[in-house]
Structures are given as structure tokens and as C-alpha cells.
């Protein structure tokens, strides 16, 4: 009885955690492409490649974390299973939310830097309009 209940808990936890990770990553990087295009000045191939690299990192980090924290102790009946399971999934969801915000912050920061760079370049060229470069 005991083993069966905890096995059920694991079999509920794994698909939920992995599904959550995949959904979040999909949403994040579908919308992250716009930021990446801004950061790399509309060069589509490098933007796509960097986006994919970050996506791989995000998947690795979150899937790895999700299955490392799988151990749930003292599950004896259905009630304790529900309590443990919801604590675990809730905690993981909060962690995922923090990761999402962190990634979004990185995107925003990269975009800001790229825009500053672009503005500085524009200013430089405006000032030197009459001067010939060697």
C-alpha cells in the first residue's frame, strides 16, 4: 500500500513538473525571439541560434532541478500524498516563476544595452557628418 501510494505520487509529479517546464520554456522563448532580434540588430540567424542556446540551458536547469528534488518522504495514505504533492509542485512552480522573471530581466537588460550602443553610434555619425574618415 505504502509503496504503491508513493509510486503514484511520483508518477503524478513527474509529468506535471515536466509539462510545466515545457510550457513555460515554450512561452518564454517564443516571445524571447523578439528581444533577441533587437539585441542582435535584426540578424535573424544569430538571434535564433542564441535563443536556442538559452532555451537548451533553461530546459537543462529546470528539468534537472525538477527531477533532483523528486524524493518525497513519509507518504502513507492519500491525504499525505496530496499534501506532499501540492507542496512540491507549488514550490517548483514558484521556482519556475522566479527563473522566468530572471530570464526576462536578462532579455530586457540586453535590449537596453543594444539600444544604448545603437544610439551612441548614431550620435557619433551625426557629429562627424562633415568630417571624412580616413
Amino acid at each position, binding site marked *: 500500500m505504502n509503496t504503491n501510494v508513493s509510486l503514484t505520487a511520483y508518477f503524478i509529479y513527474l509529468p506535471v513538473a515536466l509539462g510545466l517546464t515545457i510550457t513555460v520554456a515554450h512561452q518564454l522563448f517564443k516571445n524571447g525571439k523578439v528581444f533577441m532580434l533587437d539585441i542582435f540588430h535584426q540578424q535573424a540567424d544569430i538571434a535564433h541560434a542564441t535563443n536556442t*542556446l538559452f532555451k537548451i540551458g533553461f530546459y537543462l536547469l529546470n528539468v*534537472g532541478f525538477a527531477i533532483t528534488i523528486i524524493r518525497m518522504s513519509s507518504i502513507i495514505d492519500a491525504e499525505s500524498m496530496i499534501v506532499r504533492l501540492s507542496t512540491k509542485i507549488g514550490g517548483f512552480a514558484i521556482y519556475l516563476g522566479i527563473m522566468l522573471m530572471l530570464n526576462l530581466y536578462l532579455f530586457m537588460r540586453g535590449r537596453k544595452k543594444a539600444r544604448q550602443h545603437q544610439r551612441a553610434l548614431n550620435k557619433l555619425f551625426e557629429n562627424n557628418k562633415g568630417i571624412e574618415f580616413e
Partner: protein
Amino acid sequence: MYHIPAYILYLLLTSFITIYVGYCCHKNGGVYLHYLLGNHAPCTAINNILLCGYYLVNIGYAAWSLHHGFQISNRTELLTTLSIRTGTIICLLCILHYCNILVLYLLSRKYIHS
């Protein structure tokens, strides 16, 4: 009775994940490397050497980490042990991946400034 299937499953899972992630990173990393280091650097060679080293480190570590063996007595323990071990490997992969991106980025800055 659970040990042999656990070892086989563990090795298969970790090698599959390592090879798949390596393939994806190799494909996308080539473009990234080309962008960071420019046309003059031997990008393809660096990329291939990185991939080779990555396979050696990860598959080697996955195999080496079996040296204590698993303590498994029932199906639940099989699942948890397998998950935790594979999760550790994936976290390690992730740390390596981010370090790699960071090092390439720093290298490119040095390369451009010099």
C-alpha cells in the same frame, strides 16, 4: 534484481541526453561562435574540439559516478535513485553549458579588443 536494469537505464538515459544536447549545442553554437569570433578564427575546429571534450567529460563522469553503485530494494527507490542521479547529471550539464557561453563571450571580447 533491480540493479542491472537500473544501471543499464541510467547509462542509456545519460548518454542519450548528453549526445542529444551536444548535437543541439554543436549546431547552434557554430553560428554563435562565428558571430563572436568573426571570420578569421578557426570556428569549426574550435566547435569540434569543444564537442569532443564535452562528450568525454560528460559520458566519462556519468560512467564514473557509478563507482559506489545504487542501493535499491523496491520500485519506488528505483525511480527516485534514477531520477536523482540523472537530475544531477543534467544540472552539471547545465552549469557546463552556461560556463561555456560565458567563456566564449569573454574570449570574444578579448579577441575584439586586441
